[in-house]
């Protein structure tokens, strides 16, 4: 999660934007809930306050969905991206998210994509590809180049391919049934 925020900020930086990424470390034990944040702006970012009203929420561990108040403070036109093999309705969060535009909510089997490319359930890099597709805030190529920079060699390539899959998954799931037309934000 912390790496995802870092990579996101590096990608935004490469796109010529200003970015500030920071983690919120909790208890120092495996499995403790971890949050990380990234602010992206066209101008310099001065504030250091916590992010309490995100525009985009990426949920890497779906078991948190009903444990923590994840959606508190989410912007009315905000985006939600969830790592799961279930649908929004199966996850039982349709009611909470019904006020959001339908193309602002995506579920991506990111851990499965991670298994496919990295042989480990790494969800963060597929989710970043999905983030690029869903929001258009950063370019897929910038995310991929941030991954190659962070993990030189085969690992970087595997992560970049996973990001591509995450990206494609969102494009496919947001495309109108049978039209084959890509989502407008995906250009």
């Amino acid at each position, binding site marked *: 999660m912390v790496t995802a925020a870092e990579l996101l900020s590096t990608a935004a930086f490469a796109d010529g934007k200003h970015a500030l990424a*920071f983690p919120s470390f909790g208890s120092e034990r495996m499995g403790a809930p971890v949050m990380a944040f990234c602010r992206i702006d066209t101008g310099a970012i*001065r504030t250091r306050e916590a992010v309490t009203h995100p525009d985009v929420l990426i949920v890497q561990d779906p078991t948190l969905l009903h444990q923590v108040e994840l959606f508190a403070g989410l912007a009315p036109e905000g985006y939600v991206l969830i790592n799961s093999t279930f649908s929004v309705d199966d996850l039982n969060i349709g009611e909470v998210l019904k006020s959001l535009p339908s193309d602002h909510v995506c579920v991506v089997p990111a851990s499965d994509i991670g298994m496919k490319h990295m042989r480990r359930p790494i969800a963060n890099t597929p989710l970043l590809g999905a983030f690029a597709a869903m929001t258009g805030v950063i370019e897929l190529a910038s995310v991929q180049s941030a991954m190659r920079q962070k993990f030189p060699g085969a690992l970087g390539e595997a992560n970049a391919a996973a990001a591509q899959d995450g990206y494609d998954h969102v494009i496919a799931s947001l495309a109108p049934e049978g039209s084959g037309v890509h989502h407008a934000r995906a250009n």
Partner: protein
Amino acid sequence: MCTMRAQIEGSQAVAEAVVLCRPEVIAAYPISPQTHIVERLSRMVKQGDAGRCQYLNVESEFGALSVLIGASAAGARTYTATTSQGLLFMAEAVYNAAGLGLPIVMTIANRAVGAPINIWNDHSDSMALRDAGWIQLYAETGQEAADLHIQAFRLAEELSCPVMVCMDGYILTHAYEPIDLPDQASVDAFLPPFSPVQVLDPNDPISIGAMVGPEAFTEVKYLAHQQHLRALTLVPDIADSFEQQFHRGSGGLYRAYRMADADTVVIALGSVIGTIKDAVDELRDEGIAAGCVKIGCYRPFPTMQLRTALKGVSRVIVVEKDLAVGIGGIVSADVRMALNGLPIPVHTIIAGLGGRSIPAESLKQMVRDARAERLSEPYFLDLNMRAVDEELARRHEQRRAGPLAEQLIRTMNAIGSKVS
């Protein structure tokens, strides 16, 4: 001059900046949130990327600074980093380094001091040792943290006085932001090789650290004080020369923001200044003449400089990430002294303790409340009074009410990872 702008973590930038200063001995003991700095430094030394620098793994913070006292006295450029309980554990050596006039540079990755144990940011640690004889500089951004280290070595060595560079734990140490790192040639041009005023040399033996009795102790302390005050001239001089060479403003005694016609001024140290600047801009949009002063150098305290900068304002609000239990503010007491005799009320705001976020909304409301004279003294920003009252009532009912920290966690239904 060539620089490399990169999206980089504050800790990595500081480690890079320290290596650019060509340190010769680094000794440190890891402790969150300082760890990323010393991990990077030990790796750079091990990989041969830090010249002839030696990195010593020590058994404690007390050991770390004690090693550096010896190394610095032998003429080496020395560096360490710590935080919180680690700084307190080395406290005896902290005073000794200053008393011996050794120009050691130390990063404080500011963190709260327990109990209750808390790994998050506030200024309790460096404030506890503010009067130990070290110069204290506070960084606003990751960029300034990196830059201050380059300035700190020059300052320390010109004055023969150790310098703490304080940077907010997590908020600056763990944030990824765009940072310019200078190249080696320009740092070399800015920072000459260390030429110590006293060196321990086996071929020409002397002893330093004599016992001083009542006949001379006051004079030794008086001269140390005078020497410290020289930093009030040197700090701005070094910041100016840094700006000339690197083309960006970093460091200095203090920095004013929208102060020209300000009537209400917010004073603070460290990374919260960024949030305060945003709040000041928004207050200006509401028609409130707010301004901000960042204290960059806290020891020595720029008393006369602040007095001049604040003359004519209607009120001053000091936002401080520390608490002197039993009296209130620490920084605000110094600001009151600087304004002694001037008709300017000074409010003490205790904020951001143990990592609590300081939101711009709360700062704006604080300014409005100060102008309406609605602030209690000292004022605890975003204090959850309901939780406090509940706990007080519970303690009133039963004498053996149990440990306070555990009970309040239950009351607040807080989880360890929550940020606010």
